[in-house]
Structure formats: structure tokens, C-alpha cells
């Protein structure tokens, strides 16, 4: 599945949160969306998911405009999402949560799918525990399992490893990397972790004040701005 954004704008009262952005993400690409807090990353992801109505411009997924409710619902069957601001019901066990979301996404062979995800993400030991009782690393793995329950063709990851220790963070990154290469998933990754972006992304877009101010491969951006790594490049761009 492809994502194409055309002349996208979002204005909240007098604040222009996203200013006329355009980009296309090809099938199977992993693209990083970088920028300081409040630069419009989450709003952009919200518009791609159809949670936020653009003030103007359009979002096309596989060439179809998601503004139409029935098209959006159909497309969402093959899309999923993770955000540190969104959690799964705390009072439900890990297994119950996965069953609920599996049914919501009409997953066939749900039992088998849950079992596979539990194996691959090491969730078996706490499958009967309430999600609210888990550590943040464990919760993150459960959220990832929910995000992969429908074998998404598009995955929108909003800071997927925020507030995780390096070990769990690395585990999540490795899993996403292998899942994407196996399934050919299109991924948009919003992150403040430059190592993560360098490791996972084929291409990077830099956002500042609602605009995309630069884009390219990590290497091309580093070379273009004459810096040693992506973190230094990011700092140079946002401080200019």
C-alpha cells in the first residue's frame, strides 16, 4: 500500500499546525518523520488515519481518498498504529485485549494469530495478567502485538520506543525491522530517537513549524549538511 499526501494543511483556530505538505511513501518503504515537539508530526499522522480532518488538501492511500467514510473504514482494515499517548484497556488481560482487537479487525484464524504474536513477542508468561499491571516495556510489546494483529500493510508508528529502556527499545526495533522486511509493510515512523531512524528508515523527512523543510536518505542529509550523524544534522536543521 502507498501513502500520498497532497497540499495538506491543518489550522486550529489561528494556529497553522501543518502547512502545505506533500509527500509519497511507496509500498514497503520505511520513512522517518523527524522534527521538534509541536512541529506537526502527530497531526500529520492523525490526518493519515482520518482522525483529523484536514483544513485543505488530501490523503490518498493506495490511490483512494480517505475522506469518504466507507473507503476509510475499508482501508483501516489493513492499517494499524502505535502511540505512547494511546493504551489498551488496563482492566482486560493481555489475551482478552488481543481477542477484542483481533475481532475488531476481523482477523481470520485469530487463535493461531494470537499464539504466533505471543510467541514472537514473548507475551506468553503474562497472557492472563491485566494489561494495567504490566511494566511499560511489557505494555509496549502488547501494544505492538495489537498493532500487528491484522498483518497491517501500513503501520504508523508515533514514537514507538519512547520511555523504554535501551534493551526493550532495541528488541522492539529488531522486531519491527524483521516484520517489515518479511511482510513488505509500508511504515511511517515519527521518532526523536535518531539511532532508531538511521537504523530503520530508507528515507527521512524533517518537519519544522508544520512544514517539511528537508528530505532524503539519512546519508544524503548528513552529507548535505556536512555533519557526522543524523542527530547532529537534526540539530543543525531545527536550530537554523
Amino acid at each position, binding site marked *: 500500500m502507498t501513502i500520498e499526501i497532497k497540499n495538506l494543511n491543518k489550522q486550529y483556530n489561528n494556529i497553522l499546525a501543518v502547512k502545505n505538505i506533500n509527500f509519497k511513501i511507496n509500498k514497503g518503504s520505511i520513512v522517518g518523520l523527524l522534527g521538534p515537539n509541536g512541529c506537526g508530526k502527530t497531526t500529520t499522522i492523525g490526518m493519515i*488515519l482520518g*482522525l483529523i480532518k484536514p483544513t485543505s488538501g488530501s490523503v490518498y492511500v493506495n490511490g483512494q481518498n480517505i475522506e469518504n*467514510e*466507507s473507503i476509510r473504514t475499508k482501508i*483501516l482494515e489493513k492499517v494499524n498504529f502505535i*502511540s505512547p499517548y*494511546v493504551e489498551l*484497556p488496563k482492566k482486560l488481560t493481555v489475551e482478552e485485549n488481543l481477542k477484542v482487537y483481533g475481532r*475488531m479487525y476481523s482477523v481470520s484464524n485469530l487463535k493461531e494469530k494470537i499464539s504466533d504474536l505471543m510467541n514472537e513477542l514473548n507475551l506468553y508468561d503474562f497472557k492472563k495478567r491485566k494489561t494495567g499491571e504490566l511494566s511499560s516495556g511489557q505494555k509496549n510489546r502488547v501494544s505492538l502485538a495489537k498493532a500487528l494483529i491484522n498483518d497491517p500493510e501500513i503501520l504508523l508508528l508515533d514514537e514507538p520506543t519512547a520511555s523504554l529502556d535501551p534493551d526493550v527499545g532495541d528488541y522492539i526495533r529488531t522486531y519491527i525491522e524483521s516484520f517489515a522486511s518479511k511482510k513488505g509493510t509500508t511504515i511511517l515512523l515519527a521518532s526523536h530517537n535518531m539511532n532508531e531512524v538511521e537504523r530503520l528508515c530508507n528515507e527521512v523527512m524533517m518537519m519544522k513549524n508544520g512544514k517539511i523543510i528537508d528530505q532524503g536518505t539519512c546519508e544524503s542529509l548528513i552529507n548535505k549538511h556536512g555533519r557526522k550523524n543524523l542527530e547532529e544534522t537534526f540539530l543543525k536543521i531545527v536550530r537554523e
Partner: protein
Amino acid sequence: MFALSLRHLYLIKGSFPRILDLIYWPTIQIILWGFISQFFTMYSDYYNNTIGVILSCAILYDFLFRSSISFNMLFLEEIWSRNFTNLFVAPLKISEIITALTSTALLRTLIGIIPAIILMNPLFGVSLLKMGPPLFLLFISLYLFGTTLGLLVTSGLLRYGPAFENTAWSSLFLLAPLGCVYYPLSILPEWLQILAKGLPLVYIFEEARSILVNNVVNYSNIMTALMLNLIYFISAIIIFYLAFYGARKKGTLVNMGE
């Protein structure tokens, strides 16, 4: 100590719904119990079977209350658990969300109300089932109105976020005095009677009293209540859709609960 008080004063000062909430409950209680007292002072011999009528009306009102609160609770639980956004990125149509909430609210309501109905007989010698088949129609009417209120409150939650939560708890109490749950319509001042007649509750509770006190079933009251309920229910669904589109414009579907 002062700092802690100041923290809460800032919270009250900055939120009109909070100020309204402080004034709201005492006002509603005074109005409701004022009319009840007035009724019993004027017509102390109205009910031959006071306990039966009051208990039956209380149960019917509670059924309405539970229908509405259950609907609101299902929605609020998603906000409190920060799961709200997950639901709106799942491949669910708005009509499917409304249907799921409406049917689950009914289940929750029945779980709460059936034991109370069963306990009425051994504890007080009162059986609601003596009302016969019209009882079923009254329950349908109450459930429709409860769901309508639930839809209106959740529309407010969608559009304005968790700040609208207090309205979820207080919406029904506003209607209790107007709904004439424990006293006839005639006890209200004339100008309030005009307002009350616009609500299906008046017809439901007038009819319930008519069956319980006079053993007379007036199907025109039941049909009026059902018709009004249908109009309100359809309007509430339209408002829910409008609230959803409003929330998309405002961006409140992202990070709801924060």
C-alpha cells in the same frame, strides 16, 4: 495548606462546567423534592397503595437512569483507559459503534435492574410484572430515551473532550423534576407543564400510575411516548454524527483523555 486550596480554586475558576456542577445538584434536589412535598401535602390520599406506586416508579426511573449511564460509562471507560483513539482507528463505522454501545448498554442495564425487580416482591410485596404487557412497552420507551440521552452526552464528550464528563452524571437529574416521575403532571406550574409535555417521560410515568392506581391502560399515552422517543433517538444519532465530524475538525479524537 493555602497552596493546596489555591490549586483547587484555580481549577474551579478556570472551568465553567465545574462552577455549574457546584450549583446544579442542590438546585435540582430542591426542585424535585419541592414538587414531591407539594404533591403529598395537597393529595395525601391520592395513592391507595403508596409503596407500590412509588417503588414501581422508582424502578422504572432507575431503568432509564441505568440505560443512560451505562451508555455513557462504556464511552467514558475508553477515555479513562486512554484506549479511545485505538477504537477510532479500527475499521469500525460510526453506525457500528452506536449499535455496539446501545446493545452493550442494554445488557449492563438488565444486569443491574433484574435483581432489584426480583427483590421488590419478597421485601415489599410489590410486583412490577402485575402491570402486564404494557410494562414491556414502557421499558422500551425508557430504554430508547436513556440511550438518546447517552448519545447526546457522548456527542458532547466527542466534541468537547473529558471536560464534558460531569454532564454525563447530571443529565438525567435535570429531567427528573420535569419527567413527573413521582407526581402527576398537574402538580407542575402551567409553563413547566408545556415543557414537560415535550418529553416522553411524562407520558410514560402518567401511564404507569394510571395502570398501578386505576388499573386502566391508555395506549395513546404509550404510543405518544414511543413516537416522541423515536424522534429524539433519530435526532440524537444525527447529533452524534455531527459531533464526530466536529471532533475530526477540532482534532479531539487524537490523545483524548490527556
